[in-house]
C-alpha cells in the first residue's frame, strides 16, 4: 500500500532546500506519492527513510522466480483479488512431483516431453518437485537422474536440512525452491536458502543467487511470525504452504492471505502460495483461486491438459481478449474451387474452426472477420458480426479473386443472417454451416463437395 504525500513528507529532511527542483519538501512528497518523480532527486534523504520508502513502494505480494538452465518461472506479485478488477499477472507454476524411491526416468520423461497446443500456443508443465523419502544420497541421486532428462526448474522437498543440502549440492547455478521451513528447522533452512549451492556463487544483495523457500506453520499468525524471522536472516523469496488438501480450508486460507497482503499490506504473508494437489478438482481450485505453485502427485495428460488450459483462461487479461488478425486464411492448400468458410477473430473461435478443418485434411479458405475478438454468438449479439460486416470482409480481402465459385458458408449460429447477406452480396450463394466446429468435416463432405 503506497504511502500518502503527508506520510512521505514526514520521512523527508523537511528543509525545503529546493535541490530536488520543487519549492518545498511537501510539494516533492506529493509528486513522489503520485509516482511522478524519483526519490533519487533528493540528495539529503536519510538511509532509514530510504529503506522505509522502498519498503512501501515494494509490491504487496512478493515476486518469486525459479531459474534453471534455459528456464525461468515467475509467480506472485499479484495486485487484485478478482481478475475483473484488473487482471492476474503471473500464471501459477504447474509442477509434477516424483519421490526419490520411484523410477525417476519413467515418471519424468513423459511429463518433460508433454506439450499440448491451445489457441496456437504450446502448453507445457513448468518443472518438477523431488521428494526425499530417506537419506541424502538417494535424494541427490534422484535429482541427478532428473537432471539427465529435464532442465526445468526444481522444487526440493524434505524437512531435513542435511538432505536439502545434498540436494542443493547436486544442482549447479540454479534458483530452486526449497520445501521447506517450519518452526523446527527454519534457521538451518534459511541458511541453506541463503547460500543456495554450497560453494557456488555468493548471493548478491536483493536476494539474487539465493534459493526460494517454502514456509509452513499451523496458523496464519504463526506463519507471519515465521516468515518475519526468516526475513530477518535475509531470505525473502518465500512461498507459503497452507498445509491442507481440504477444498474449504484451502479456499479460506488462500483468500485470507491474499486479502491480508493486498488490503492490509501485511508483508509477512505477502507471498505466493504452494498447493500440493492430488486430484483434478483441487488443482482446478488452486489455479482459479490464488495458487502460485501447483504441485501434482501424478502426471496424467488427461488432467494436466485441462489444468493448463484453465490456467490460460483465468490468467488472460480481461481487457485483452485473445484475437487473431482478420483476413483470408488458407487451410490445406485451397484451390479456386475450395469452399469459403466465415468465422470471427476471437482466438478460441478461430482455432476451433481452423484446427477442425486442418485435421480433416480438407482444403478451405477461412475468412476471418474483425469482430473485435468476440465469438460468433457474442459478436452477433453485440452487432459486431452481421451481414454488412461479412460482406465488407469478402470485399476487403478480395475473396472473389481467389475462388471460381461465389459461395460462402456462414456459421450455423447466425443462420438468420443468410437472407441479409444474400442482399449484401448479390450473385453469391450463401450456405449455412453447422453450429459447432466439430461438425464441419461431416458438413463439408455432405454439402460442399
Amino acid at each position, binding site marked *: 500500500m503506497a504511502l500518502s504525500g503527508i506520510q512521505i513528507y514526514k520521512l523527508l529532511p523537511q528543509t525545503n532546500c529546493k535541490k530536488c527542483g520543487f519549492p518545498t519538501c511537501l510539494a516533492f512528497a506529493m509528486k513522489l506519492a503520485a509516482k511522478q518523480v524519483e526519490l533519487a532527486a533528493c540528495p539529503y534523504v536519510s538511509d532509514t527513510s530510504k529503506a522505509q520508502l522502498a519498503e512501501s513502494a515494494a509490491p504487496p505480494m512478493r515476486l518469486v522466480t525459479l531459474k534453471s538452465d534455459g528456464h525461468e518461472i515467475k509467480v506472485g506479485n499479484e495486485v487484485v483479488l478478482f481478475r475483473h478488477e484488473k487482471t492476474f499477472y503471473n500464471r501459477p507454476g504447474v509442477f509434477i512431483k516424483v519421490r526419490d524411491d520411484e523410477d525417476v526416468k519413467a515418471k519424468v520423461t513423459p511429463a518433460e516431453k508433454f506439450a499440448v497446443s491451445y489457441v496456437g500456443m504450446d502448453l507445457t508443465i513448468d518443472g518438477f518437485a523431488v521428494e526425499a523419502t530417506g537419506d541424502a544420497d538417494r535424494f541427490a541421486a534422484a535429482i541427478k537422474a532428473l537432471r539427465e532428462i529435464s532442465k526445468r526448474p526444481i522444487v526440493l522437498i524434505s524437512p531435513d536440512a542435511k538432505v536439502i543440502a545434498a540436494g542443493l549440492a547436486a544442482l549447479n547455478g540454479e534458483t530452486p525452491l526449497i520445501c521447506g521451513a517450519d518452526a523446527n528447522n527454519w534457521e538451518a533452512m534459511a541458511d541453506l536458502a541463503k547460500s543456495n549451492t554450497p560453494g557456488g556463487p555468493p548471493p548478491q544483495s536483493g536476494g539474487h543467487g539465493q534459493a526460494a523457500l517454502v514456509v509452513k506453520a499451523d496458523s496464519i499468525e504463526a506463519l507471519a511470525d515465521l516468515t518475519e524471522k526468516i526475513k530477518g536472516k535475509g531470505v525473502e523469496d518465500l512461498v507459503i504452504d497452507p498445509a491442507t488438501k481440504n477444498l474449504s480450508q484451502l479456499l479460506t486460507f488462500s483468500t485470507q492471505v491474499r486479502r491480508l497482503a493486498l488490503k492490509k499490506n501485511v508483508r509477512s504473508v505477502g507471498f505466493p502460495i504452494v498447493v500440493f494437489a492430488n486430484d483434478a478438482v483441487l488443482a482446478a481450485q488452486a489455479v482459479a483461486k490464488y495458487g502460485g505453485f501447483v504441485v501434482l502427485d501424478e502426471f496424467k495428460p488427461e488432467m494436466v491438459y*485441462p489444468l493448463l488450459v484453465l490456467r490460460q483462461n483465468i490468467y488472460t487479461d480481461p481487457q485483452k481478449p485473445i484475437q487473431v488478425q482478420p483476413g483470408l486464411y488458407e487451410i490445406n492448400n485451397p484451390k479456386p474451387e475450395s469452399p469459403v468458410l466465415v468465422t470471427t477473430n476471437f482466438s478460441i473461435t478461430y482455432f476451433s474452426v481452423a484446427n477442425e478443418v486442418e485435421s480433416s485434411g480438407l482444403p478451405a479458405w477461412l475468412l476471418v472477420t474483425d469482430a473485435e475478438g468476440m465469438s460468433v454468438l457474442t459478436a452477433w449479439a453485440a452487432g459486431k458480426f452481421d451481414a454488412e460486416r461479412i460482406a465488407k470482409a469478402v470485399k476487403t480481402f478480395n475473396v472473389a479473386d481467389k475462388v471460381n465459385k461465389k459461395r460462402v458458408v456462414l456459421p450455423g449460429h447466425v443462420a438468420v443472417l443468410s437472407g441479409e447477406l444474400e442482399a449484401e452480396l448479390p450473385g453469391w450463394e450463401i450456405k449455412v454451416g453447422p453450429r459447432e466446429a466439430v461438425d464441419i468435416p461431416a458438413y463439408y463432405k455432405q454439402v460442399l463437395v
Partner: protein
Amino acid sequence: MPIEIPKDKWPGSVRTITLGANSDGGTRTSVVTVGGEKALPFMHFEAEVPHRPVVAIEIRDRKPDDWSPLLPEVWGEAMNDPAAWAKAAEAAGADLLLMMLSLTTSDGQPNTPAHAVAAVKAVLGATGLPLIVFGPGNAELDNALLVPVAEATKGERLVLGICEDKNYRTIVATAMANGHLVSARTAMDVNLAKQLNILISDMGLPLDRVLMDPTTGALGYGIEYGFSVMERLRMAALQGDAMTQLPMIVCVGFETWKTKESKVGEGVPAAWGEWHARGINWETMTALTLLESGADIVVLRHPESVKRVKAAIAELMTA
C-alpha cells in the same frame, strides 16, 4: 503478532428460492432450496452459508442424436425413455432434474405439445425430484411447447426456460398463470442480466420465482467470461443491487460435452490423454471453477461428474 483477518461485511444478500412443492400444492416429494448467501462463495468465516449449491442432471425427452458417445455409454437403455432416465438420474444422486425438450421427435418431425406434455408427465410420475423444463432453444417452438406443458402441470412449481431478452414474455406469462418459476439467461453481461430481470419483474412475476443464468463457456471455450461475470453479479448482489440478487444456474454439462475434447476419442493428439477421464475432468473442473464464482445450481450430464462435484460441494461446505 496478532493478525486481524479482514472480513467483508456486505449490506445485501442473495434471495432464497425454493424449488419443489410448497403449501400451495405440487406433487414433488423433495424440496431444493438455494441462495440466501450473505458473503462470497464459501466464506464461512464471514457468514453462515445457508444452503449448499445443488447438482441437477440434464436429461432429454428422447435419446439425443448428437451427444458425446461417452454419455449413452454410461446411461445405457435408460436414455430411450424419459421416465427411466429420470429414475436413473435420481439414483445417480441428482438433487433435481433438468429436462430439455428436443427440437424433433425420434422420427425427425418437429416436436409437438402432446409429445412434450407426455414426456414431462412421465418424468413427474417417475420421480419426486424438483424439475426444470427447458424448451429446445428455438423461440417459436419453446413457446409452443412450454405453454401446454405449463398448463398441464399447473401448480407443480416447475422452472421453465429459457427466458431471453428476445423471447421471455410468453414463458413468463404462462409461469405466472400456472404457478411455475422461470430461468432467465443473458450472454455474460452484468447489465443485460439486470435488464432482463427488470423486464421479467415488471411483468409481475415475483423475483423469488426467477433463477439467473449468466451463461458460461466450457473450460477452454470461454469459461473465464462466465467466471468473471458471475463474480461481478454476486458482488453486486451483496452490495445491495436488488436486480442481481438471484441464485445462479449454470449449464455446465451442456457446454463441456459439446467440446471436441469430450466428444472425440480417435484422431486427437496423444497429449490429450485418456478420453473418458478427460471428459469427466472437463465437466468437473468447469463445475468447480463456477461453483467458486457463485453457481447455486450446476447442471451436469455424467453420473461420475455428479459424484465428484457433490463430494467437492460437501467439502466446500465444511466450515
